[in-house]
């Protein structure tokens, strides 16, 4: 198994921690992992992203230009990375704020209105967990129990009371993705 993905959005949307959770969870399953953030001043106000790789074998480069999965949380990220999805790969995006949807036809496209759903859960911060859930529905590469362990690792101690909410969000995401699958 080797999953190479990029998660991109605005700073503050939680893209970096999504990647970290996946990687930590990967470690729990004794996989090789690598997490590489975009860094430097261009992060400021602009887009942030991270590349996460989870693999059964040693990982070569942490920096890639083509991905099995692209997760885009805003329009600029979608625009920038749509073409970086490998043919046959997955493009999952937050759909509530997207004006120009993707146009490729050789890949799996999964729009999730996660921001709207997060609003319903009364915590806009869990938007990323909804997306993560959706991703895990499409690519169940890691067991849910380990994802929860990953969240425990990444979330600072003082937020651990929010874990149930996060779990709820994950499940919501899975459910939404399931629907998209069925629609197709």
């Amino acid at each position, binding site marked *: 198994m080797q999953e190479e993905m990029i998660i991109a959005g*605005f700073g503050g949307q939680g893209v970096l921690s999504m990647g970290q959770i996946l990687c930590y969870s990967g470690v729990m399953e004794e996989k090789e992992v690598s997490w590489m953030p975009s860094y430097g001043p261009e992060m400021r*106000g602009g887009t942030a992203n991270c590349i996460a790789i989870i693999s059964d074998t040693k990982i070569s480069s942490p920096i890639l230009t083509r991905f099995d999965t692209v997760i885009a949380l*805003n*329009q*600029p990220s979608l625009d920038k990375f749509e073409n970086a999805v490998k043919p046959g790969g997955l493009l999952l995006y937050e759909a509530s*704020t997207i*004006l120009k949807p993707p146009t490729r036809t050789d890949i799996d496209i999964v729009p999730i209105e996660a921001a709207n759903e997060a609003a319903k859960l009364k915590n806009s911060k869990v938007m990323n967990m909804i997306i993560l859930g959706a991703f895990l529905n499409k690519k169940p590469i890691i067991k849910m129990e380990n994802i929860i362990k990953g969240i425990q690792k990444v979330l600072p101690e003082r937020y651990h009371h929010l874990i149930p909410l996060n779990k709820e969000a994950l499940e919501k995401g899975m459910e939404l993705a399931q629907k998209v699958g069925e629609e197709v």
Partner: protein
Amino acid sequence: MAKVKGDILIDIEKCKGCELCAVACPQDSLELSRKINSKGYHYIVKIEDNCTGCTNCALVCPDGIIKVYRKTEKKKERVATISNVTGDITVTVSS
């Protein structure tokens, strides 16, 4: 409503929604929109029609995206802080 003496044009595509203009406006004419521009920022909008054209908002706007207009009975010389302008005033949205 008071007689309108001033008005502003905001290049909302370049607005970053910092709200410094809103704080600076003595007329409380400005507010953040619920909507966002293509950069993802909530942008500033005029919520009242009471602008006096005092230029405060434009002076503090870090992004220099506010044009201020003022209509006075007797047209005065422009104040020292203002530069000569002859260009077009239409606001274009950068792609």
